[in-house]
C-alpha cells in the first residue's frame, strides 16, 4: 500500500467506526446470549425475546405474510428495520446483523486478504429475492432456506452447539473417569461452570446436523474467496434492504476525478460497493465507515437526499438490477412450481404424514409461515423435534416434526409455541396443550412383548401422561411361544384419550424399533385426518 494510506488520518468518522464495532460486538453477543437462553430454565415461560432476530427480519416477514396470505402481527418489529433502512440504508448489515458480524470477525481472525473490488455475482441476491417473492406469491415457502438468520441459527442449533457439547462432554468424561482426583479438582469445577453458563443442558442429536452444518460452514468458507461473500453474492435480505436503501433518504458521496489513481476506498470496501469511478452503490454499501475513515482526502461522506443539489448532480450511479430475462426465468419457475409440487404422489396423506409440534397450523398454513429457523428444535426439551429432510417434500425441508423414538412431546411443556417467531406453531396455554392431539399411538403386536413373547412389560402404560391414562391394559392368560401358560397385562389404547405425545414410543424398552409408535393420524389441526369413528369436538383454539 502507498505511504499516504499508512498515515494516520484524523477523520471525523473515526468515532462512527468505533460505534459500528461496538454495535457489531454487542449484537453478536446479544444474539449468542439469546441463543443460549432459548431453553427451559425452570419456568414454564421463556423469559427473553429469544426469537427477536427473526421478528425484525423484513424478508421473512414479507415472504411469510405473502405465502400465508395474512398479516402476522408477531412480525411487526420488522417494520422498524424497514424504516431504519429507508433512513440510513443498509446500516443493519454493517452494524447489527449477527451473521455479518461473525463473518467480519472470522475474516479478522484468519487475516484473510483477497481482491474485493468486484463482486462475483452482483445480481444473484436480487434475482434470489425476486424468486423467493414470486414463490411466496404462489404459495411455495422457500425463504427460510436462504435467509441469513435461518441459516445461522439452524447451523448453530443442529451442528455447532451440539458438537461443542460433544467435545467438552468427551473431554470431561475422560478426565473424570481416567485421570487422578487431583486433576478433577480443577476440571470438575470448570465443567460445572461451563454447564451453568454456555453449554446446553444435555447432548442433542439432529438428523440434519451435516446438512445444516455444511450450509453454515459454506458461508464462512466463502470469506476466503471474497469478503462478505454471502452478503454480496447470495443474501436476499441484504438485497431487500438494498432496495430500501437505494430509494431511501440517505446517500453517500464517493470520490471523483480529482482522486487520480487513488483507489483506497475501492480496495478496502468489504462489500465491493465502490466502482471504478469511486462512486458508491447504495444498494450494496453497508455503512461500515472503512472508506470514510481511510480516504486521504476525506471526501467520502453520507448526506441526506435533499442536500444532493448542493453536491452537484453526479452522473447517476448504475445500481445493480435484474434483467428482463432473469425476471422471466424467476416468474416461470415460480409459476411452474406449484402445479409440479401439487401433483406429487403423497401416498394418500394430503396433509403430509409428519407429526407437527402442538399448536402447529394446518399443514399448508404451517409451511407457509415456518421460516425454518430451528428455534423450536433448540427449545424442545426432549430432543424430540427434528428437522425434516425430503420426507414431506421440497417445501418442507428443515421444518420441525416429532421423531418420537428420539424424544417425546413433554406433557406440561409449551415452549415451542412460545419461541416460534411467525405463529406457524401457535402458543398454547397448558390447558390447551393437554388436550391438543398431535397424533395417535398404535401397537405393533408382532413386536410388543406381552403379545408377541408372553413377557410382562407395559412400560408405555407407566409413562402415558394423560391423567386418565390413554394406555390401559387387560389382564389375560396367554400361551407363551414356548408353550407355558402365563397371566400378564396386555396394553391397549383409548382413542379419545391419546394425544400422540409419543412418550410411549420413546420409552418402549425394545432395542431398535419400538413396539408402539405414533403417527399424525387424528391430529387436531387437520379435520381430514381424523381417526375412523372418532367424534372429537372441533378445536377452536387457533387464530
Amino acid at each position: 500500500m502507498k505511504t499516504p494510506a499508512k498515515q494516520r488520518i484524523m477523520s471525523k468518522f473515526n468515532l462512527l467506526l468505533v460505534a459500528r464495532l461496538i454495535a457489531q460486538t454487542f449484537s453478536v453477543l446479544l444474539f449468542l446470549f439469546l441463543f443460549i437462553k432459548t431453553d427451559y430454565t425452570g419456568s414454564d415461560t421463556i423469559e427473553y425475546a429469544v426469537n427477536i432476530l427473526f421478528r425484525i427480519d423484513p424478508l421473512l416477514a414479507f415472504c411469510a405474510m405473502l405465502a400465508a396470505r395474512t398479516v402476522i402481527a408477531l412480525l411487526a418489529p420488522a417494520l422498524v428495520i424497514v424504516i431504519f433502512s429507508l433512513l440510513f440504508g443498509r446500516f443493519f448489515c454493517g452494524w447489527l446483523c449477527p451473521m455479518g458480524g461473525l463473518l467480519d470477525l472470522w475474516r479478522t481472525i484468519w487475516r484473510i486478504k483477497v481482491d474485493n473490488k468486484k463482486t462475483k455475482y452482483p445480481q444473484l441476491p436480487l434475482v434470489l429475492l425476486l424468486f423467493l417473492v414470486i414463490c411466496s406469491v404462489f404459495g411455495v415457502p422457500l425463504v427460510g432456506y436462504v435467509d441469513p438468520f435461518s441459516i445461522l441459527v439452524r447451523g448453530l442449533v443442529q451442528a455447532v452447539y451440539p458438537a461443542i457439547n460433544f467435545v467438552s462432554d468427551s473431554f470431561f468424561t475422560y478426565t473424570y473417569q481416567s485421570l487422578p482426583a487431583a486433576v478433577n479438582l480443577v476440571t470438575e469445577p470448570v465443567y460445572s461452570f461451563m454447564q451453568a453458563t454456555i453449554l446446553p443442558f444435555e447432548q442433542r442429536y439432529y438428523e440434519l446436523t451435516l446438512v445444516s452444518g455444511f450450509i453454515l460452514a459454506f458461508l464462512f468458507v466463502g470469506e476466503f474467496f471474497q469478503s462478505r461473500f454471502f452478503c454480496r453474492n447470495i443474501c436476499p435480505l441484504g438485497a431487500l434492504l438494498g432496495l430500501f436503501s437505494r430509494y431511501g433518504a440517505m446517500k453517500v458521496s464517493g470520490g471523483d476525478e480529482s482522486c487520480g489513481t487513488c483507489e483506497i476506498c475501492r480496495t478496502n470496501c468489504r462489500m465491493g460497493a465502490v466502482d471504478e469511478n469511486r462512486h458508491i452503490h447504495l444498494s450494496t454499501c453497508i455503512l461500515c465507515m472503512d472508506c470514510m475513515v481511510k480516504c486521504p482526502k476525506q471526501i467520502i461522506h453520507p448526506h441526506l437526499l435533499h442536500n444532493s443539489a448542493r453536491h452537484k448532480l453526479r452522473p447517476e450511479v448504475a445500481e445493480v438490477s435484474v434483467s428482463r430475462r432473469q425476471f422471466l426465468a424467476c416468474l416461470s419457475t415460480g409459476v411452474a412450481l406449484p402445479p409440479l409440487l401439487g401433483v406429487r404422489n403423497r401416498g394418500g396423506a394430503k396433509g403430509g404424514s409428519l407429526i407437527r409440534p402442538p399448536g402447529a397450523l394446518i399443514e399448508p398454513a404451517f409451511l407457509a409461515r415456518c421460516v425454518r429457523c430451528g428455534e423450536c428444535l433448540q427449545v424442545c426439551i426432549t430432543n424430540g423435534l427434528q428437522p425434516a429432510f425430503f420426507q414431506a417434500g421440497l417445501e418442507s425441508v428443515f421444518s420441525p416434526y416429532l421423531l418420537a423414538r428420539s424424544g417425546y412431546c413433554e406433557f406440561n411443556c409449551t415452549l415451542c409455541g412460545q419461541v416460534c417467531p411467525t405463529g406457524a406453531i401457535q402458543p398454547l396455554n397448558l390447558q390447551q396443550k393437554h388436550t391438543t392431539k398431535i397424533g395417535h399411538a398404535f401397537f405393533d403386536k408382532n413386536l410388543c412383548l406381552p403379545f408377541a413373547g408372553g413377557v410382562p412389560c407395559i412400560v408405555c402404560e407407566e409413562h402415558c401422561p394423560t391423567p386418565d391414562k390413554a394406555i390401559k391394559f387387560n389382564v389375560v392368560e396367554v400361551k407363551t411361544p414356548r408353550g407355558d401358560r402365563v397371566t400378564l397385562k396386555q396394553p391397549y389404547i383409548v382413542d379419545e384419550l391419546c394425544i400422540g405425545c409419543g412418550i410411549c414410543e420413546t420409552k418402549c424398552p425394545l432395542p431398535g424399533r419400538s413396539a408402539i409408535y405414533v403417527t399424525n393420524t387424528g391430529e387436531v389441526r387437520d379435520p381430514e385426518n381424523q381417526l375412523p369413528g372418532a367424534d372429537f369436538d372441533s378445536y377452536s383454539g387457533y387464530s
Partner: protein
Amino acid sequence: MNRRQFIQQAIALSAGLSFSIPEVFAAKARPDLAIVTGKNYLDVVGHSIELLGGMGQFVRPGDTVVIKPNIGWDRSPEQAANTHPLVVQGLIEMVLDSGASSVDLFDHTCNEKRRCYQNSGMADMVISFGSKKVRLEHIDKRKFIPVHIERGKSITSWEIYKQAITADVYINVPVAKHHGLSRLSLGLKNSMGAIGGNRGKLHHDLGQRLADLATVVSPTLTVVDATRTLLRNGPQGGNVDDVRLLDQVIASVDPVAADAYGTTLFGLAPEDIDSTVAAHKMGLGQMDLAKVNLLKKTL
C-alpha cells in the same frame, strides 16, 4: 427453628434414655416400623425417625449421606407422584443435625430432569437450605458404575449410580403410590431411580429384578412417604381426585417390612406385591407383618 430445637432436644433425650437402659432392652425397644400420622409433615417425619431411635443411630458425624426421594415425574406435590418435599426436608435437617458431611439427593427421572426437580418442589426446597453440603444433583451419566449382582436370580449385573453405592448412609424415601404393572410403587421400586441402563427391561420380570437390585442398593433406612397416596393412574397420576390424603410416614430399617406395611394402606396384602415376596424369599426383610414390631403414633 422451634421444630428443629424440639428435634435436637428429643435426640438428646433419647440418647440419654438409651444410655440409662441396658443394651439388651434398648435393642428390643427399637421398633421395626415406626408409623406416624399428623398434619405437619416435618414433625411427622421427625417423630418417625425419633421412634427408631433418632437419626444419630444411622448417621455418624462426617458421614456422606444419600437421600433418594422419588422425583421421577413432572408433577406437583399435591398430585402425589413424587415424594413430598417436606418429608425430604425433615430428613435433610435431621441428617445435617447429626453431623453429615454431605447430603446428596438425586433421581433418575422419567420426565425431563429439570422439570421434575422444579415442579416436584424439590429444587426450591434444597435451595432453601443454602448449604453447600446439600446437593440436588441431575443424573450425570459419567457416574454410572457397572455392578455385579452376586445374589441376583434374574439379573446379574446393572449400572448403578455412584453415590448410591459409595455413600455411608443411603436413605430411601419413596412415595407410596399406584403402579400399573407392579400394582404399587414403594421402596424397592424407588431404587430404579438410582440405576442407569435400559430400565424398562426390569419390567420383564419386575418383582424378582427389584429384589435382585435390592441386594446391592440396600438402604440404611427406608422412609415411605404416605402423606398422600396416589390410588389410580399411577405412577405419574396427574388428577388430584386420584389422591388420598393419609398424612402418614413409615420409617424402617427393614425395606421389605416398610413395603409390606405400605401395601396395606391400599387395601392390599403384602403378598400381592411381587417384589415384596421376592425380597422376603431372598431374606432381605420381613413381609409378615404379624412378626414385625410396629410402633404407631398420631400427632
